[in-house]
């Protein structure tokens, strides 16, 4: 066999080998002390995750370590689809940490961890209702169109209903109405979302705590510090000046637990942002098996 032929065959076999060994990169590892399912198949112990793998837990929690650093604890009887940069929580509950800019999609909401130290717990109650708690760090919650619906502060939890709020632009907020650079800004006391208010009624209550209803103006550019523009329909002054509001709100944070377990009743809804109804709830959503929770150890071989 001459040299040229040998080189050609060598190249050919190398090419075949490359073809045969083109391994798609894994995105992480899932492990559990019991059985779980990956893409519908039962797995015991641990498995490698590929982009878009679906993980479903049975009676025990599963822990997902993503190569990007994010760590996810999936509660029993939960199901997620896992990607390199986000998960889609289809059922049950999950906790996430070490996932700066990591996103969790639940119902139609997009939930983002704001920094690497954030520890969030998300419970998908059904296709419309989601509860989110920020144990450490803050969590941004946006609707399907990318509009900021809430910022969940550390130690707080909010329950969301994507259907109960009415139209996609419906808004109902309460908080301190301030003037900044000739614009009227309101930071909702439940969702921590700051919006710019438009409408003649806004000016009358500046500097006071108000409750407003209105409609979000799509495609409008909000003032600095605001995430959206609201065309005000009604403004009700609730009396207290903004300084008093701050003291009062501290005493109320974490209240309004109604709605975390069942649907959000109209009376319980604390805010409606971009059509998403929001109510405050208590921290600790009952996520079975979180980073701090008790977990089952692996069975020891005698």
């Amino acid at each position, binding site marked *: 066999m001459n040299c040229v032929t040998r080189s050609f065959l060598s190249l050919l076999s190398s090419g075949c080998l490359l073809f*045969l*060994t083109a391994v798609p990169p894994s995105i992480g590892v899932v492990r559990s002390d019991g059985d779980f399912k990956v893409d519908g198949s039962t797995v015991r112990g641990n498995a*490698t995750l590929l982009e878009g793998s679906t993980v479903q837990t049975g009676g025990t929690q599963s822990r997902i370590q993503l190569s990007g650093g994010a760590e996810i604890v999936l509660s029993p009887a939960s199901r997620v689809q896992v990607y390199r940069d986000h998960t889609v929580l289809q059922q049950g509950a999950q906790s996430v940490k070490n996932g700066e800019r990591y996103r969790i999609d639940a119902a139609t909401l997009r939930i983002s961890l704001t920094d690497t130290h954030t520890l969030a717990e998300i419970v998908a109650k059904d296709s419309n209702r989601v509860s989110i708690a920020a144990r450490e760090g803050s969590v941004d919650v946006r609707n399907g169109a990318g509009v900021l619906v809430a910022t969940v502060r550390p130690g707080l939890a909010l329950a969301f209903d994507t259907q109960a709020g009415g139209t996609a632009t419906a808004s109902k907020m309460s908080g301190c109405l301030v003037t900044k650079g000739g614009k009227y800004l309101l930071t909702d006391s439940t969702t921590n979302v700051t919006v710019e208010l438009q409408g003649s009624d806004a000016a009358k209550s500046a500097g006071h705590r108000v409750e407003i209803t209105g409609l979000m103006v799509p495609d409008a550019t909000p003032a600095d510090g605001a995430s959206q523009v609201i065309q005000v329909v009604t403004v009700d002054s609730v009396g207290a000046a903004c300084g008093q509001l701050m003291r009062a709100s501290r005493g109320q944070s974490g209240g309004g637990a109604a709605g975390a377990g069942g649907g959000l009743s109209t009376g319980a809804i604390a805010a409606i942002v971009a059509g998403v109804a929001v109510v405050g709830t208590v921290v600790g959503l009952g996520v079975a098996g979180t980073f701090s929770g008790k*977990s089952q150890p*692996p069975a020891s*071989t005698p």
Partner: protein
Amino acid sequence: MILVARFVGAAAMVVALTFMGAWTVRLALADYRFRQETLSGTAAALVLEPDNAAYYVRLAAIIRESNPVGSPRALQRAIALNAWDSQSWVELGLRAEAAGDLAGAESSLLRAAGVDTEYYPRWSLVNYYFRHDNPEKFWFWARKATEMAYGDLAPLFNLCWNVASDGAFIEQRLDIRKADVESDYLTYLTSQNRVEPMAGAATRLLAWNREGDVPVLLAACERLIADDRPDQAIRIWNKLAELHRILYGALAPGLGTSLTNGDFTILPTSRGFDWQLPSTGGITALLDERSAGLRISFSGRQLENCDALAQLLPVAEDSNYELRFLYRTSGIASETGLGWRITGPNETRVLAQGESLASESEKEGRLRFKTPTGSGMVRLALTYQRALGTTRIEGFIVLRGLRLTRGPTELVRALDFPVHLRHVSRIH
């Protein structure tokens, strides 16, 4: 002297029993605290029984988040006490991998496989080498895992198909030698619609001749039919028939044997080349014992356009065929839309449409059709298409004695004319 000896013996016995009792109580208490599954309970259990590896494993799990340094140490202590605990070795390996200690991870995982030759440690190594793009070791451990495989093997096969895309290469590397694994492999290929290696895997599984594999083989057969590979599907079907795993005869389209269960000796199973029964509401089918045929009833609430019965027929291309059948109806008026139809396998092209079937007394019917060039399969269906001006039919038809014959050459020319259905004789 004897009394003294007896006294000493009794005293020693009492001391020993007391010690054993106290030790038993101690162990029981440790076990009780361990089962509380709390940090304090586990710590108390370790005080009472400090050399129990299982307690350290539990401790490592409980403090996994709160004490990232202590947790692996507890795991290492557990392994020091019980070096045969492969699950702890695997856990230690996965933790080392997460921490970036790849040498430690590989070492621990290999140690797990060294002390435990079961599937789990090998599976863990398969995953490890997959993640770290080491195909040589991946295939080595994939083969090892296959030797000890049990349960759902789809995850293992899935990794293999992510590493390579050549079925023959994968099969050679895995070296499957167990019927259960072969069955799992064929199930995997079918579910993933990996058609190319399916026939080979089915042939190997058929060699084991196991009753339990029939559903898997029929599913593969159906997948091959759906992928328009009638020859491969027939090979599975015929082998099952030869092994008497199905109650039908072999098919030989080249010799004109294309129809299955034409006498309706058993109720159609909707599997493989057998008749497919309707899944739509308003139509029911059962064997008619009186006339030894199939009775298909229409409730009047069925869809206005639906199949009542269908079968995929493997046929010779560019050939003419004649379907003959006996039938009678009850409560179904003529020209109301019930009749046979021959189409291509994907139902897009109608090759022949029979006349509307309605006769209170049994008749023989015929339907001739010609198969197109390049097609090895046609679909025969008894269809209902409500005729204009009629209400949906309510009644039944009894079919029996279906025969499909490949026609003589001269018939090909005759079939150049539009296909039609003829009543050739009245039986009753």
